[in-house]
């Protein structure tokens, strides 16, 4: 790795990504536009894992797909290994994308039930015309070994003859076939039982060390994301509210939303008080997001400024950015107590209004 003094070029650099979907009413008329991803920027360095956490509907999966150009984002740039993917077409895009692979949540949904494990893992090699038949065969054996499946036992099986953990290993082997530099994991271990989940997480770590892989690791489980990530980004309603080194984000969260998420996790320490539901209500509809800060309708610290101005990301500590007018450390908001009270009284009303 290069020295700290000259920061290396990031492997993946997304700038001001926007992804929109048209919402249609009954009959097919346009009734609105959802900005599922709204001006998101981030970098992933070589060998680094960036975790992205957020609730259902926060746009984290849409963001991952926008990076992959499937579908192409509405606006913004995605520079991967020095080329802007949003400008590439056809064969060029295909070639650029071979270095970027995806692992999905449901392994059985992403493996063709009629194919055998060998063909599934071999498919990317065939698709990119990599090597001859013998070379590909050897590569498949290597890959299965790498993910901890004995080729002699598993290569001829069908997905239905595998457990969930084994099927996910096959999906990982397929993702590794073309020696990618970046793997995008979208809830890749969320459907696995905890003991199997730990095995697969360890596998991801082992592959990162051995193959110097980078990951974009998307999950709703905060503890899981912390376990694998160097840096963590928190997403709410299509925007990043906080990005920073994992340890910092979890120890000293700057955004009230991050704090609320952390407070909601059930702990295995019964003495440490049960998880307190600090957030009231539910995320507002993305069709009609709140003005200013999108979190303000549920935020205990919201003040007038939050409705008027969209908070821009600010770097409050080295590498630790937050998009909040009144972050949790670094100065209390003017008249914090009054603002909190104001917010508390406003909350039930807003909850109803969002429906």
């Amino acid at each position: 790795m290069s020295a700290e003094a000259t920061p290396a070029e990031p492997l993946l650099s997304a700038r001001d990504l926007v992804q929109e979907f048209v919402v249609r009413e009954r009959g097919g008329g346009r009734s609105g536009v959802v900005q599922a991803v709204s001006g998101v920027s981030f970098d992933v360095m070589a060998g680094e894992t960036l975790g992205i956490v957020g609730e259902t509907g926060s746009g984290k999966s849409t963001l991952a797909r926008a990076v992959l150009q499937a579908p192409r984002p509405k606006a913004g740039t995605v520079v991967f290994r020095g080329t802007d993917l949003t400008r590439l077409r056809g064969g060029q895009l295909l070639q650029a994308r071979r270095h970027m692979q995806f692992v999905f949540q449901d392994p059985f949904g992403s493996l063709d039930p009629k194919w055998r494990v060998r063909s599934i893992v071999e498919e990317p090699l065939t698709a990119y015309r990599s090597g001859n038949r013998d070379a590909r065969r050897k590569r498949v054996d290597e890959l299965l070994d790498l993910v901890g499946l004995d080729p002699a036992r598993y290569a001829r099986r069908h997905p239905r003859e595998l457990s969930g953990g084994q099927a996910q290993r096959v999906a990982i082997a397929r993702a590794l076939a073309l020696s990618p530099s970046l793997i995008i994991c979208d809830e890749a271990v969320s459907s696995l039982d905890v003991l199997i989940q730990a095995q697969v997480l360890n596998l991801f770590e082992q592959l990162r060390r051995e193959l110097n892989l980078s990951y974009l690791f998307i999950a709703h489980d905060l503890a899981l994301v912390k376990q694998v990530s160097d840096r963590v980004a928190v997403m709410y309603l299509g925007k990043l509210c906080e990005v920073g080194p994992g340890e910092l984000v979890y120890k000293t969260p700057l955004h009230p939303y991050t704090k609320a998420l952390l407070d909601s996790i059930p702990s295995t320490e019964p003495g440490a008080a049960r998880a307190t539901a600090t957030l009231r209500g539910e995320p507002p509809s993305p069709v009609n997001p709140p003005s200013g800060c999108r979190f303000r309708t549920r935020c205990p610290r919201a003040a007038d400024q939050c409705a008027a101005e969209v908070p821009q990301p600010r770097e409050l500590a080295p590498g630790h950015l937050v998009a909040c007018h009144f972050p949790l450390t670094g100065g209390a908001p003017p008249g914090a107590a009054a603002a909190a009270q104001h917010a508390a009284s406003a909350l039930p009303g807003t909850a109803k209004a969002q429906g």
Partner: protein
Amino acid sequence: MNGTQAAGALLQVEDLRVAFAADGREIRAVDGLSYQVDAGRTLAIIGESGSGKTVGCRALMGLLPASAEVSGSARLRGTEMIGLSDSELRRHRGQDMAMIFQDPARSLNPTMRVGVQITEAIRAHRKVARSEAHVQAVELLRLVRIPAPERRFHEYPHQLSGGMRQRIMIAMALACRPKLLIADEATTALDVTTQAQIMELLLDLQAELGMALILISHDLGLAASYADEVIVMYAGKIVEQAPATRLFGAGGTVKMRYTRALLDAIPHLERTAHTELPVVSGRPPDPTALPAGCSFAPRCPAAADDCAAKTPPLTEHAPGHRWACWHPCENGVPA
């Protein structure tokens, strides 16, 4: 059964067994389950997929396919539930016990307004006029803290979020004020903040209505945070049972190595990134070919010769703390 039933136990399960036949082989999904739940208490049943945690509870609700062979005893307020006919069971479901499931979207009828579905649940169990049922349904929506209940009554499931739909399911389950509510992975599909809201709601309702609650989950964190008593199941059997305060936390004394493995495998916020998670190899045994002796022995780091030879019985070794292991952990950590 002669009357060893402890006073105050709302639900008394004894030696419950459920078996299925598959290709001529027998699957012992639940293999001798015994426990009790008192009114107003919360019991968590924890285990991996296929451990029998759901099947055991479905057996007492009478929600298993006809091919299931159920034996043993489950008494709810003194009445035997196992072996009742469908119509007899229907009298108890809803009134005495109710169950909510993981996926509220699939439990609700997508073509019916949610209020009508609640009304239907009420009228299935009680002879009340439609108008009276309507009033009660709105009352139930209010009980589960759905904002603007009069308006929500007329909405369809797709117009509601996952958390709201689960609240509707809870409202339906509570229509006849059951004494026992079984929540089967009821918050697993929800986001953490919504999960916290639903759990808080369930505990509040429990206190309000004096219900007993059984939480079926794979999540030990949920059990530690919300349950009074915890049962850990593996391959159809209880392997450890204790009050939550005894198992978890700083002075936690986990005895069973399987429970320990489950606890260690959970990513914790306290853990440093990129550290290897302690894992046990392998996966749960094939239910049609359970190993002799302890079912966990093939994966257990402390397995010895006697583990494969004889099955360790589930014994109360300390007050309220039962475990089934020949070589338990010392002071909660593996010896």
